[in-house]
């Protein structure tokens, strides 16, 4: 069985264990992009996100917010995906 790392979701912008970890997806500025370094979420959510393509090593860009501030729109693997901030927090990105 794979070891599931069950951490508390990070506050936006916090840099956990090392320089390669990067920042939370939520802290990207509009137009900024990076590479996904890890996905931290409870098992079912993590699997679902990864199956959709949020896999470490993938390029991701923050395209734009929505009128009420949540969700945000990201570009990933050729498509635009809307993610709530609570979901984006699970994804760490190396800029």
């Amino acid at each position: 069985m794979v070891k599931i790392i069950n951490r508390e979701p990070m506050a936006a912008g916090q840099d956990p264990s090392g320089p390669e970890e990067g920042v939370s997806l939520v802290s990207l500025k509009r137009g900024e992009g990076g590479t996904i370094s890890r996905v931290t979420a409870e098992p079912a959510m993590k699997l679902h996100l990864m199956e959709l393509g949020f896999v470490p090593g993938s390029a991701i860009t923050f395209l734009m917010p929505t009128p009420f501030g949540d969700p945000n729109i990201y570009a990933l693997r050729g498509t635009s995906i809307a993610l709530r901030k609570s979901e984006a927090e699970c994804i760490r990105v190396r800029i």
Partner: protein
Amino acid sequence: MHPRPDLNPAQAVPTAGGAGSASTTDVSVNAASGAGSSGSEPLVALVGSANSGKTTLFNLLTGSHYNTVNYPGATVEFAIGPGKNFPGFPCRVMDTPGLTSLIPASLDEKVTVDALFAKHRPDVVVAVVDANQLSRHLYLVKQLQDLGFNLVVALTMSDLLQRKGRGIDARKLSELLECPVIPIDPRNKDKAGELGRLVEERWLAGRAATGRRMGDEAEYRSFAGGMTEDRVHGYYAALDEIERLVAVREADAPHGAGAGGATADRILLHPVYGLAIFLAAMFVIFTSIFWMAAPFMDLIDGAFGWVIAALKHGLPQSWIVDLIADGAVGGVGTVMVFLPQILILFFAMGYLEDSGYLARGAALVDKPLSKIGLNGKSFVPLLSGYACAIPAMMAARTIPNRYERNLTIFIIPLMSCSARLPVYTLLLAFITPHGKPWIGGLALTGLYLAGLVLGAAVSTVISKFSRNKGISGFILELPALRLPVLRVVVASTYHKAEQYLRKAGLTIVCISLGLWILTHTPPVEMPSVAAAPIASVAAVPPLRDPARAASAPAVASAPADGSGTREYVTVSRSYAARIGHFIEPITRPMGLDWRGGVAMISGFAAREVFVSAMALMYRIDETKGDGLADRLLSRMSEVTFEGTHEKVFTVSTVLGVILFFMIALQCFSTVAVAKAESGGWKFAAVQLAVYTGAAYLLTVALVQGLRALGVE
């Protein structure tokens, strides 16, 4: 094991017992095939992401001639049609709801998985892959391959990719995937024949191969159970490599190509313009339901009225003739009159959905809806509820979280459906002051908004007191904006309307018939009064324009209670009347006498039946279709409680009835679908009790309260 919230993969595949025989016969399939029974024809399933062009391809391959097949005891429906564009290869083609992975994340994805492994075992699977999203869409392809399906990959949207200056080497891809790959534009027939040949080849190859059975349930269970993050990572690593190897860079890539989509979204999701566009779109949809539908509804209404009148004048008068004319034909009429509204709303929504706009809409309203305990994905189901609650509740299958799905289904009846419109129109016309028809229009808008606000309130309250709501997720793909293919939208609108007719229509007609019988038995033998006009009522009085009704001059109506025409006497001694008298103590506080009570009961068959029941109970004596609305209105203003001079219909009473109709769940078809979609009679029963009970209490409170304040 990594079960999805609410969807344990081990449960995703039910036992296949009983699967196989459809409850509706595929007449068109049998007719088109000509080669043996439909059971022996190969089944080709189209699988893929919702926005990959799959449904457009399905329409192309079946020529938009397909049936939706239902299985007994399930609300799950599959679109299956004959493979018209596969010359020389008779087969059945099946469309499936969108799927991103064989591990379902929502109920409609589960439906697709069930189709592949349990209910229908396709002989060949055509995986529809968007060339712009190779890695994500090939993920599903890899899973299908690992489970042994006979695959053909249809590569779509290459034109979009070309505009970005890139391309895909289909032959190389086919090599790497070890299965046929055909680039195809689902909007034109060019490659359909080639696709057919590839599918046929795979089918024959599959039949020849021995050993491993495709789509094996046990294999699926262990596959789903063993899906780990490492495995997913491994899949994508391989896919990234494949994507790199097949990518072709076109020499002259126009600078800034592909940026068009981003600009459009910048406007559509702009804090000011985006919101404005959204509100404008909603406004257009709703007003089009009213003014665009009205002439068609009048047409249908008139046609049915004509048929009923013709039947009654042509055939000798008898109870049976009345049963057929008013009961049966009239009942069918009440259902058909709503078809224009339903068609228009579903066409508009289908068009917006295929254009990709509805996904933006859902993203836009996610935050406000979350505040009241729902999900952005509740947007489309709630919107559909304005046409008819039945397809709306079925649309809730796209909401992954079970709690949010059930809450959405619970709220849907408060989105005032088409059937309430004739009731609102009649009652508003009564209280709208003469010469100021715009007040009626404004009031109508107010009623619809009130339903929305009430829905939000109910949702908020329920969420506050709920625990164990599970994990809420949104994660929505925004498909590339594009011009919808008209034929596809028309076909889907037709099928949604057919769904309404099948699910609601039949029930409504039966109950209408039953109610007619209840109000016309026991039949009364009366000495025939020469030249006494037979009281009869057209199915639904043409009452959709409060302005028109309110400004028409009051017409002298039937003589006051007392002088009997056959029908009135029959009705007043019928079983329904007895029930009406029996419940009068309950209806009195609402301001209605026994006749209104009977009309209210009739409203439980289908809300619009209330209007024709009112006309019946308060005796509109002329057969002429025209002016029926005015006659009813003027009649309403005169009617008094029996034996007194006290008027039945006062402002407070009418407001009370409006409130009742806004809240009460008066549609048995809806109750049945609510049970099916939420998975339990308890849910549906609670919904029915809460809404109807609350409606009654609030109506009584309103009427008595208004009277206490001195309102008439």
